[in-house]
């Protein structure tokens, strides 16, 4: 048992790093799912797009920051496609996201020159030193071979804080407020002169930009991009949003803190998954099933509460004027 605990403790920094990286995607999911009230399934495709764009550009000698910005931009384009399918073509948001996601599969393969997996050669120290984050750094900082500020927890943590600050500012502006109004009550937003089609598209672009940025960080961290790296990403994103809400909902009222809760939710998710993997002999193939089950239960809880406790039912109804 002690051995198992030790192996788990050793794996925690890696799990936290991974959670932080996925937390950026989860913040993107929060923008669509919570703020815009749209379930966007583009995510599963756009995270891989971000990773693929980064790895290919890096391989072509493009500097890391530029490659990451490019990933962000291409992610926004994916959001734009979903947004236009939804608003300009009248396709329900869920279906629009599925269509984009399916299309992105081919796009992602095309970006990777029809290879399903492209690696960054980090055995070459010149490449490794260019990386912003890497799984190797977790080990090397631990050994003292690298300074602490190269630890992925530190780097991605800073990234996350910067993103939260930017989003906090943005959603406080006139434009950001109109995005929130669109999700809160579309009728009201239009009556106040807000073009809700434009705000929805903008929200989807911003969200998928962040998701692709997460993909770029993830492919650096694991030093490869894979055509399957986005599979089930939306569920992990939802899990992070929901865990963050359940654990910190009562504590964090401020918008910035709510975003932080999403990131923390992703960390909790990865640490728990790591615990399950380290402390039991579970076949890792079953992890997706476990994740899906956990998310299903957490999504069901508000409904059950509403159904069996009238008090909560009323509250839920009031909170959802669009329903």
């Amino acid at each position, binding site marked *: 048992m002690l051995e198992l605990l030790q192996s788990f403790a050793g794996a925690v920094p890696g799990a936290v790093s991974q959670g932080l990286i996925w937390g950026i995607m989860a913040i993107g999911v929060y923008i669509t799912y919570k703020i815009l009230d749209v379930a966007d399934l583009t995510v599963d495709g756009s995270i891989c797009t971000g990773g693929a764009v980064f790895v290919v550009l890096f391989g072509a000698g493009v500097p890391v920051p530029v490659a990451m910005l490019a990933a962000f931009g291409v992610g926004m384009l994916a959001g734009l496609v979903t947004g236009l399918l939804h608003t300009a073509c009248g396709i329900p948001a869920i279906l629009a996201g599925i269509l984009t996601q399916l299309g992105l599969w081919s796009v992602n393969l095309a970006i990777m020159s029809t290879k399903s997996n492209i690696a960054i050669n980090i055995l070459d120290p010149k490449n490794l030193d260019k990386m912003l984050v890497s799984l190797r750094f977790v080990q090397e900082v631990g050994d003292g071979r690298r300074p602490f500020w190269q630890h992925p927890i530190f780097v991605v943590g800073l990234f996350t804080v910067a993103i939260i600050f930017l989003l906090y500012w*943005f959603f406080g502006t006139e434009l950001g*407020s109109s995005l929130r109004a669109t999700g809160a009550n579309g009728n*009201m937003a*239009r009556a106040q002169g*807000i073009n809700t089609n434009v705000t929805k598209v903008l929200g989807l672009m911003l969200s998928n930009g962040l998701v692709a940025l997460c993909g770029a960080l993830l492919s650096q961290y694991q030093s490869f991009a894979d055509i399957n790296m986005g599979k089930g990403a939306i569920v992990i994103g939802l899990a992070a949003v929901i865990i963050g809400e359940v654990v910190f909902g009562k504590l964090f009222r401020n918008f910035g803190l709510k975003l932080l809760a999403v990131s923390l939710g992703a960390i909790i998710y990865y640490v728990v998954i790591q615990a399950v993997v380290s402390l039991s002999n579970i076949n890792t193939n079953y992890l997706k099933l476990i994740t899906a089950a956990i998310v299903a239960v957490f999504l069901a809880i508000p409904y059950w509460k509403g159904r069996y406790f009238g008090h909560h039912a009323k509250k839920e109804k009031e909170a959802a004027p669009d329903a």
Partner: protein
Amino acid sequence: MLEIKNLRKVFGAGTVNEKVALDGVDLTLEDGDFVTVIGGNGAGKSTLLNAVAGVWPVDSGSISIDGVDVTHLPEHKRAKYIGRVFQDPMMGTAATMQIEENLALAARRGRARGLKPGITKAEREQYSEMLKILDLGLEDRLTGKVGLLSGGQRQALTLLMATLRKPKLLLLDEHTAALDPKTAQKVLDATERVVQRDHLTTLMITHNMRDAIAHGNRLIMMYEGRIVISVSGEEKKKLTVEQLLREFSRASGSDEADDKLLLG
């Protein structure tokens, strides 16, 4: 101020549920007119207001506000000219946003929204003053979520939002129907005050014939998508509910007025 010409709208055209909601409506409102609209269920009152607000496109006819043809403008562009209060208290405000945030959104109606702050300190003070006038105790709850307000408070807030930037046209769609009588009276009084103060051109739907007679300088009654009665000026001041019912029976050629309208 508002000019509606031969407006037609058919719902479910070509199906068994086909419904001619607006059947050639002509209506002109002068600047400062306060027109009350009555009529039975399905007479086309709400359809008329939604057509003016641009919720969906009309089949034919034209609408112009203050000389601008808005017939083909989308809803959010017409919002520049129009303030609206809906029947459902949930519809006019964003429940998950703060009272001051809702007001700040309304203060920017019809303006481009950029990356300037969504609300300024000066605005906050201004809103606090405005809410004091409403006398609902909301001035101390600026940062409270609108979802926690009562229906009456929400309607009063929606009214304030609709008139925060003086609209060329105020549309009230049975905005007191979902409230208890006492609250309804309070909101109606507030409506009368703001309409008088800002000299607002107003279209107000109501189910209550007494309210329709007591408020405004003109009354119109709709029946089957048409305006069948229009009374204004001195004539309207002398109008009684009984007289109105008689007029309605004559105009519609039936007795159903008694059933459909007395209930209101």
